[in-house]
């Protein structure tokens, strides 16, 4: 069966903040309204809604339920939720539109990352019998991976600092970003380790944030956007999580997803990679076969603003905006989930 042409036709993001005192409904409502206004559609034009968030970050079961208030689910709507980043919600919406049941979908995600100890919360994703009781910490797991990569000569500390320096400089041009800076590579390398071999700038900045995008099929997309960001390939894959059971110096799931999404078929102008640690960007670039000519994370990426469960969808929003603006013709958006790049979703989008 031939796949339908589906595109992102609009995006909206809330500027990053920390220790937000707003509820998820309060932060989502204005973003969704802003997006509908931008695209020029009404709630009733949306055939399917899909939400990404994580109960553990809110510390309550069914924390996503109140979000149906933010999207105005009356009269009743067709809606679903993933316990994952909003990028996975976008994947579900893409599948839904592919069935032909609906033509327009709104995808949104939110993460109040700073309302709890995110490092410990995310490490509750590990094996509950053998690993989680040790409270490994998400940063510590990433540090283990970075150490393995350094020892194997896959990355260098200088390359990691280069990623951080570039990301912090690019963040100066992004209103959504939280961490900004103009430090040189040498200045960053002179900083102390926070979790050897990681320095503070090697780790993503946890922020509270939310975002939303509208997907539309075929001529509807052409009507709603001057230059839609057409999804040419999208795929996600997972690796084993078991520590020691997979190579920490490569990402095979990212490589498979990139190959299935058709990354290597042509030049990629802009790649928005969801890499919460500097060495992970280097691993992802290698796994996906991205060349030097690709501009990586012009937004500054997750390093400068990482609203957990929304940072992947933010990559889609940033990549699509570069198509809308005409500054890129073929872009890549990526989302990772789980410790040490366990799960990876890759999407290639093009302008017409």
């Amino acid at each position, binding site marked *: 069966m031939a*796949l339908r042409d589906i595109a992102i036709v609009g995006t909206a993001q809330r500027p990053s903040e920390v220790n937000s005192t707003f509820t998820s409904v309060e932060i989502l409502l204005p973003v969704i309204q802003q997006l509908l206004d931008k695209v020029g559609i009404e709630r009733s034009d949306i055939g399917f809604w899909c939400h990404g968030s994580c109960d553990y970050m809110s510390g309550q079961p069914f924390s996503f339920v109140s979000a149906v208030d933010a999207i105005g689910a009356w009269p009743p709507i067709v809606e679903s939720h993933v316990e994952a980043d909003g990028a996975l919600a976008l994947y579900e919406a893409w599948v839904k539109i592919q069935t032909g*049941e609906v033509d327009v979908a709104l995808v949104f995600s939110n993460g109040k990352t700073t309302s709890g100890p995110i490092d410990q919360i995310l490490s509750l994703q590990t094996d509950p019998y053998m690993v*989680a009781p040790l409270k490994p910490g998400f940063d510590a797991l990433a540090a283990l991976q970075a150490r393995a990569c350094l020892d194997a000569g896959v990355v260098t500390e200088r390359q990691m600092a280069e990623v951080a320096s570039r990301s912090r400089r690019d963040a100066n041009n992004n209103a959504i970003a939280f961490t900004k800076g103009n430090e040189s590579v040498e200045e960053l390398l002179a900083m102390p380790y926070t979790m050897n071999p990681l320095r503070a700038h090697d780790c993503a900045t946890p922020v509270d944030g939310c975002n939303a995008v509208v997907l539309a099929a075929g001529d509807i997309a052409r009507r709603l956007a001057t230059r839609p960001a057409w999804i040419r390939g999208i795929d996600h894959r997972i690796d084993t999580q078991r520590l020691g059971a997979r190579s920490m110096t490569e990402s095979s*799931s990212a490589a498979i997803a990139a190959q299935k999404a058709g990354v290597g078929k042509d030049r990629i102008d802009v790649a928005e990679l969801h890499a919460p640690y500097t060495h992970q960007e280097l691993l992802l670039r290698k796994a996906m076969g991205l060349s030097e000519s690709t501009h990586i994370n012009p937004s500054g990426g997750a390093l400068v603003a990482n609203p957990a469960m929304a940072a992947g969808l933010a990559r889609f929003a940033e990549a699509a905006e570069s198509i809308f603006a005409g500054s890129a013709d073929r872009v890549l958006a990526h989302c990772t989930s789980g410790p040490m790049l*366990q799960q990876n979703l890759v999407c290639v989008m093009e302008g017409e």
Partner: protein
Amino acid sequence: MAELCAVVGVGQTKHAACRADVSIAGLVREAVDRALADANITIADVDAIVIGKAPDSLEGVAMPELWLADALAAHGKPVFRVHTAGSVGGSTAIVAAQHVMAGIHGTVLTIGFEKQSDGNAMWALSVPIPFGMPVHAGAGGYFSPIVRGYIARSGAPKHIGAMVAVKDRTNACKNPYAHLHEPDWTLEKALETPMLWDPIRFIETCPSSDGAMALVLMSEERADKHAGRKAWVHATSMRSEPTAFAGREQVSPVAGEMCAADLWRKGGIKNPAEEIDVVEMYVPFAWFEPMWLENLGFAPRNEGWRWVEDGITEMGGSLPVNPSGGVLSSNPIGASGMLRFGEAAMQVMGKAGEHQIDGAKKAIGHAYGGGSQFFAMWLVSSTKP
């Protein structure tokens, strides 16, 4: 135009209050291995996995599908997680079916599970939310005023809930996988059980279970080449509405009515009560059987309780509801919706064993969640649409 999708394998665990003999991964794998054996394929034949469960706080593992990838031999494959409250087992099966209907994958394994003995479901669901409506003591505390509303509106006699409970617990004795096997219930004994949340009695309440359900779904191209009985997915539907607003109809929510109407339209069903042979309905509290009979368009408004009283929903009745014993006999929350969807498939595949309804051709699976606000349904048949 969507492709066709068929269920070619169904597998579930033995449900119990505490499956201390298996880990979470072992519980999931028990259902998966049975579904794969039923489909006569191996896990290597699976293209993608779609997995659902209710709140992660019930077991204390955040996004457990990540950790479970190993147990599911999913390395290098897509694993997709759905979470839509109590309806999740149903919506997970629907999302899985859509992967096939969209033409993206040819063989999809879908799983719903919950290992409630690892935590305390009632209190895990009763966390006070600042500025939110309190759920009080578990789901029963939330739903009892709605049941009272139904009784007041319909004039149903007080014993209807107990009748449903006795029927489901009796049916469960024919289902080897059901959590509760209690053959000796009578209406008199049922009416003597303690009142938990007036008017909901002890027997009218679902248990807290460990359990999992897995289904193997295939595209038409693969299913046609596949030996064995199939359940063809004729229609799926989902609807959601907010938990609370002034004037909200909570006894028969509009989202539920719309979900059913959409299912009947897509499936070409004109008269559900005549055309549907078996119903696997999400009834965690017994009174929801008559309430959903009305909400889904089977019985006229305020008449659902008469269908219960007349035995229409018994296994030998004209519209058997929950021959498996239903949620009232096994409730691993994250699996409960998929158990309904899978049991509906088993009926039209002729694989339901002792609780088989003879000659079942069309069956529905139904699930709901949240404050009666999330609905998921599918219509399956022994023949292609």
